[in-house]
């Protein structure tokens, strides 16, 4: 990868901002505006020639993150020799002080005068047409799985630490030794699926790369130290890719023993630092027909740790209104047909953050994402779906409520003025349309007339048998699609009407469903923090709560109106909710339905309505 990184660093078309984070992204497809914080490095990388004089004088010693804490670094350091950009960085949290009296040694010796203790963060703004999200993975920390003794036994290490210990550029210059006594281990065990395929710790998925990584490790050991004995404890070996089976067979030929079964716990011999594992080998049957319990004494144990979604996933997700699957990785637009598109138009995924995958698959996906993004950039111009909001100047009563609740700030309004929509900034969620009390807002293609007509049509025949559902396009409706794609069966009583956002559903639409005889009405949207329209579904909550009060006052059981959050990945949940709604429907009597029809009839009292609107606006 080194050459690729160098290419990226010097490509005339690439602006490389390292030690930087995207703080905010606004705008929409083709017209995103990103605010990026370039954190202070305190070393000017255009001046630094990596001479290393500073490192020699820095008195600070801290665990080196690159070496997984197996060696130390200074407060001023280069992350690793092949770093791009090849420049030092000063970690101000570790530095003794930017006050020359406290230290200041590095600046004294820097001939290039590249060190600047007063360096400050800088904010840069970039207008971009497309965004590729490639924030990768985090490695599972096995501390919580105490049975393997990672924090208690010195010679239990993770597969990530293994990488550093076997690497010529690592803390031991590639001499593979065990941490307790720096002796070379002869009998090495690997435990697979640590932090993967384990619903008990909330990580049910396969991490994809760890079986092959262990096979690779056994081959490396056999190559460097032919006298080591390797033992791999596994549930299944997943060696499904091109030339993977071949590697697996080669590993077995080196004498590596594969034992099917995961150890229950790991004990340490306090004298020798050796580790004793007991495992039920499920491929061996004892005389009584039960699996055989086997005991292994090992010099070292490597935990083949799984991979988890990157720490910043939620942050980036919020910025770009993305969603995630139940495993916690990013959710793609379609699992087969749009695998690199995000649900937000103009955003694409590359690499691990979308799902666990190896380098080859990450590179392939990056190619796909860049070709999708490239097509968009090449287009020069694009069409925005005509689902935006329009305000009728005559009907508008200038209350400004719509401008206050618009998640995009796409409506401008000043006291005493008619509100106006900036069409290019409007995403079409429809919260304003459902909020305006004066009927001044038309949501193009999701008008009140259209949605009310759907309510009436669906409930024209045998309404008492039906559960009426409003589902948002991005999450709950998509969750219904997911149930369909996964062929999850559920009760057939529901009838779904799609809106772009649950916030589009007005009070009147819900009441109309009851007036038409719906026993149960469900409003469903994206999970609270995952709203596709930033936070429009807060309006949904406010509205449903207000409706519950109204129903109560009218003597209608408030439970007949339900609110549920269902994500696009939650086909199972969609099915479950539909079954629950059917159970609820069965409890609603014809008498209740008839009462509701009458009690919720609109009372045309204009003055009262106006007063109420003014109150909410204030």
């Amino acid at each position, binding site marked *: *990868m080194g050459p690729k990184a160098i290419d*990226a*660093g010097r*490509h005339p*078309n*690439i*602006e*490389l901002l*390292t*030690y930087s984070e*995207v703080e905010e*992204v606004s705008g929409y497809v*083709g*017209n995103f505006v990103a605010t990026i914080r370039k954190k202070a*490095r305190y070393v000017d990388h255009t001046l630094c020639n990596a001479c290393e004089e500073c490192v020699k004088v820095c008195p600070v010693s801290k665990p080196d993150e690159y070496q997984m804490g197996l060696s130390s670094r200074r407060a001023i350091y280069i992350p690793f020799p092949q770093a*791009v950009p090849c420049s030092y960085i000063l970690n101000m949290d570790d530095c003794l002080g930017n006050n020359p009296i406290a230290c200041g040694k590095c600046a004294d010796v820097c001939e290039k005068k590249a060190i600047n203790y007063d360096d400050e963060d800088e904010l840069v703004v970039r207008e971009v*047409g*497309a*965004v*590729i999200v*490639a924030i*990768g993975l985090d*490695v599972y920390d096995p501390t919580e799985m105490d049975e393997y003794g990672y924090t208690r036994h010195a010679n239990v290490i993770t597969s990530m630490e293994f990488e550093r210990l076997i*690497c010529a550029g690592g803390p031991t210059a590639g001499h593979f030794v065990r941490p307790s006594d720096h002796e070379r281990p002869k009998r090495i065990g690997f435990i697979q699926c640590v932090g993967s395929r384990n619903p008990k710790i909330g990580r049910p998925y396969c991490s994809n790369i760890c079986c*092959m*990584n262990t096979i690779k490790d056994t081959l490396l050991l056999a190559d460097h130290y032919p006298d080591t004995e390797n033992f791999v404890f596994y549930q299944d070996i997943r060696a499904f890719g*091109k030339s993977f089976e071949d590697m697996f067979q080669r590993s077995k030929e080196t004498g590596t023993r594969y034992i099917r079964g995961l150890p229950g716990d790991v004990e340490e011999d306090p004298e020798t630092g050796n580790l004793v594992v007991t495992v039920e080998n499920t491929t061996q049957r004892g005389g009584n027909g039960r699996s055989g319990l086997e005991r292994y004494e090992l010099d070292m144990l490597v935990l083949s740790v799984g991979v988890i979604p990157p720490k910043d996933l939620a942050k980036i997700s919020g910025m770009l209104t993305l969603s995630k699957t139940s495993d916690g990785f990013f959710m793609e637009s379609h699992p087969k047909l749009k695998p690199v598109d995000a649900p937000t138009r103009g955003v694409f995924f*590359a*690499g691990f953050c979308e799902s666990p995958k*190896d*380098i080859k698959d*990450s590179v392939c996906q*990056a190619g796909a*994402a*860049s070709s999708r*993004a490239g097509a968009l*950039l090449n*287009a020069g*111009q694009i*069409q925005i779906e*005509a689902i935006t909001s329009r305000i*009728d100047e005559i009907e508008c009563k200038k209350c400004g409520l719509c401008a206050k609740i618009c998640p995009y700030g796409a409506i401008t309004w000043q006291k005493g003025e008619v509100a106006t929509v900036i069409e*290019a900034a409007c995403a079409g969620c429809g919260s304003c349309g459902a909020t305006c009390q004066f*009927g001044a807002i038309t949501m193009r293609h999701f*008008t009140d007339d259209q949605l009310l*007509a*759907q309510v009436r*049509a*669906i409930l*024209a025949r045998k309404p008492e048998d*039906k559960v009426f559902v409003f589902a948002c396009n991005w999450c709950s409706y998509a969750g*219904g*699609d997911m*149930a*369909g794609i996964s062929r*999850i069966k559920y009760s*057939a*009583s529901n*009838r*779904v009407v799609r809106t772009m956002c649950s916030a589009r559903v007005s009070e009147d639409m819900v009441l109309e469903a009851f007036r038409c005889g719906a026993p149960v009405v469900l409003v469903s949207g994206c999970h609270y923090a995952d709203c596709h329209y930033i936070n429009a579904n807060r309006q949904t909550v406010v509205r449903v709560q207000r409706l519950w009060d109204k129903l109560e006052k009218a003597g209608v059981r408030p439970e007949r109106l339900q609110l549920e959050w269902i994500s696009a990945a939650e086909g199972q949940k969609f099915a479950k909710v539909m079954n629950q709604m059917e159970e609820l429907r069965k409890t609603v009597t014809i008498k209740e339905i008839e009462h509701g029809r009458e009690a919720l009839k609109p009372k045309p009292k204009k003055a009262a309505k106006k007063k109420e609107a003014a109150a909410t606006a204030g």
Partner: protein
Amino acid sequence: MVSQPPIEELRIGVFVCDCGLNIAGAVDCGAVTEYAETLPDVACAVRNKYTCADPGQNEIKDAIHKHRLNRVVVASCTPRQHEPTFRQCVREADLNPYLMEMANIREHCSWVHPNDREAATDKAMDLVASAVARARFLQPQEELTVPVSKRALVIGGGVAGIEAAIELADAGHKVTLVEKEASIGGIMAQLDKTYPTMDCSI
């Protein structure tokens, strides 16, 4: 917002898709088509084997001309998959794409109610009635055209981000590559050799 009674005479065409047996296996598509004919302003109702395939799309286009249709309802799969397909289809027959509406009788119906033909058919009828009712109020819409900024943002400088940035840059696009750490490289920078070829990671 005030109810705008459609000015012109409404002529709605309904196209009910079998999707092979994907829909027809669980829903009585014949009955749904017959039911669609009885709905207000429906000028014709047609059953197709695969509406999204060329013959199916041609049937829609022909019907638009033959029956002077000014609204189209396609009862097939989720609009999240084929709405662009059918919008384009009606556009090719000189109908504004926003005058097309879909009823999802596959993902939301046949695939999830495979064992109760009667209930699935009844549900499909309601979904078609809903789409037809909505179609009566559809209005032609014009899409806003906006320019595209000529730069891409890549967030994350691991092997995936690096590769994506280089490919875009090689194709002549400007790229801003943002990496949170002091160097790009990601996890690969920390690996020794990598499978399946056992070459150096960095």
